[in-house]
């Protein structure tokens, strides 16, 4: 068996592991093995590549390759290991962005490399698509990162004629691609690169912080497609298979995610969701309606008389890192014969499954995590719904107010419980920027402050009573 055949067989093996890994990642039982399997497949592919011949010689610059890999590992491992759980979405964004950047660089370099041999038009087209998609993913992910990391406002950034301008930049890019196809001009390629970067930025600007996870999933799919395009250029089935797998599954996943929020993908991407609702929030407050606020001690007494308590966690819990104290409170209540469970909204927090991950970290028993539909039927008989740092996911406007931007999103019906308690930092509306009627409901008590502090005080008060 020739060397090339052997390497191709190893690539085939890797591609197979990627398919199996994606399948594994779709079920809770096999998810972790799936990820390990893909990592193993990746190691095999990278190892095999060292022995590959290009242009009739073995790889040049092997030391340079090893050095670059070393730098990558030195940066990536500590970052991925030690960044806080709350920062996970931004981390995924940035690792996706660099992948897009790499795909774009591969395409550019291949263009420079093969230009002298006058490649067929379709080869150039693949290169240009790789550059365009990869760069959009890179710059778009960078903005998504900045939004999530709060380096810039999480609100949608809009300006007059935004759609028209975005469309125009898109058209210019398309025209540029056609021109490069005809002229094979390298300077124009650099302009395309710059323009793609701009396109990624202006595409992401109008998307609100709450929708960014869906966006990251889409950009992830984009990077997959850019990798597939590079695969065409380099003539690598492995890259085509892996890239297309990620591209196709990523687009489906993006649609599933927006469905979980009760919205369509185009609504997520183009409606500048949450930008114009602050005005209505202000008028509600001018009505002079008051909210009722209480102390942690008041709530401890309320909890003490309850027989069934539902915790509804949200992003605020993740920010304050209060998950361990929350579990402590739950255990304390349970020890007094009070039934406790956690109602998990599928998109609570800043990425789907965020709350499951967070509570699992605090060793909350799996059985106490109840999904939305089940939670809603249980809430009718609950005495207290304790909303910890959640807002939009319990906003009744999603059910009642057809004018609300979140109308139609499935919510956890906290208002069904006998009493509703909100632990909130301030009266500020939630991540989507929408006023919450439930805060003004006569059943509702608000406790202002950091969720962890408040929970700690409540634990102390329950213990003392």
């Amino acid at each position: 068996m020739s060397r090339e055949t052997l390497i191709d067989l190893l690539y085939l093996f890797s591609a197979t592991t990627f398919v199996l890994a994606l399948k594994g990642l779709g079920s809770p039982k096999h998810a972790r093995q799936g990820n390990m399997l893909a990592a193993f497949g990746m190691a095999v592919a990278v190892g095999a590549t060292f022995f590959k011949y290009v242009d009739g010689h073995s790889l040049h610059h092997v030391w340079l390759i090893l050095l670059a890999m070393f730098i990558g590992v030195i940066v990536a491992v500590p970052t991925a290991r030690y960044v806080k759980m709350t920062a996970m979405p931004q981390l995924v964004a940035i690792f996706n962005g660099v992948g897009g950047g790499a795909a774009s660089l591969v395409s550019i370099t291949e263009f420079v490399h093969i230009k002298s041999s006058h490649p067929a038009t379709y080869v150039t087209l693949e290169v240009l698509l790789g550059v365009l998609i990869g760069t959009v993913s890179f710059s778009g992910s960078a903005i998504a990162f900045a939004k999530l990391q709060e380096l810039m406002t999480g609100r949608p950034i809009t300006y007059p004629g935004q759609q028209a301008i975005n469309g125009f930049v898109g058209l210019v890019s398309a025209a540029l691609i056609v021109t490069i196809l005809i002229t094979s001009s390298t300077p124009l390629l650099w302009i395309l690169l710059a323009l793609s970067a701009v396109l990624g930025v202006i595409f992401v600007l109008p998307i609100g912080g709450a929708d960014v996870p869906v966006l990251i999933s889409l950009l992830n799919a984009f990077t997959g497609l850019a990798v597939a395009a590079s695969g065409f250029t380099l003539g690598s089935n492995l890259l085509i298979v892996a890239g297309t797998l990620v591209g196709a599954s990523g687009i489906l996943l993006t649609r599933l995610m927006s469905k979980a929020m009760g919205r369509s993908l185009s609504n997520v991407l183009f409606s500048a969701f949450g930008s114009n609702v602050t005005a209505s929030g202000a008028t509600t407050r001018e009505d002079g309606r008051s909210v009722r606020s209480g102390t942690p001690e008041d709530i401890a007494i309320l909890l003490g008389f309850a027989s069934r308590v539902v915790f509804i966690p949200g992003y605020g819990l993740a920010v304050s890192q209060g998950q361990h104290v929350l579990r402590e409170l739950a255990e304390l209540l349970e020890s007094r014969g009070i039934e406790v469970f956690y109602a998990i909204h599928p998109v609570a927090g800043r990425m789907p499954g965020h709350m499951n991950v967070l509570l699992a970290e605090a060793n909350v028993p799996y059985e106490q995590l109840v999904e939305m539909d089940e939670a809603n039927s249980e809430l009718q008989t609950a005495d207290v719904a304790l909303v910890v740092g959640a807002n939009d996911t319990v906003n009744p406007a999603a059910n009642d107010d057809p004018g609300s931007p979140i109308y139609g999103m499935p919510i956890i019906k906290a208002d069904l419980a006998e009493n509703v308690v909100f632990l909130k930092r301030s009266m500020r509306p939630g991540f989507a920027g929408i006023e919450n009627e439930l805060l003004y409901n006569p059943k509702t008590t608000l406790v202002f402050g950091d969720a962890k502090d408040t929970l700690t005080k409540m634990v102390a008060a329950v213990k003392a009573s």
Partner: protein
Amino acid sequence: MGNVLLQYATVLILTAFVGTEIIAKVPSILHTPLMSGSNAIHGVILVGSMLILGEANTNLQEVLGFLAVILATLNVVGGFVVTDRMLEMFKPKTQKPKGPKNEEVAQ
């Protein structure tokens, strides 16, 4: 053009169907790990980056290739480690707490 392109296109189209088919029934709690895991998989661009650096014969190509290998390595390594860390947190709750809980029910 001809056969090679056709062969690649065949692979692309069949893989696209496989990609959508195998994740169609993923539960919503796994959306994020799945996104993160597939993020790591497209890090396979590392193979492409190695090849372009390995065939580089001008300074420009070397610089671009070098950068590409760094970025792709970040994607691969970071992607797998983050995903593993997310999934690590899913694991104890399906196994550890179940034991005692079942015993309680039995009593």
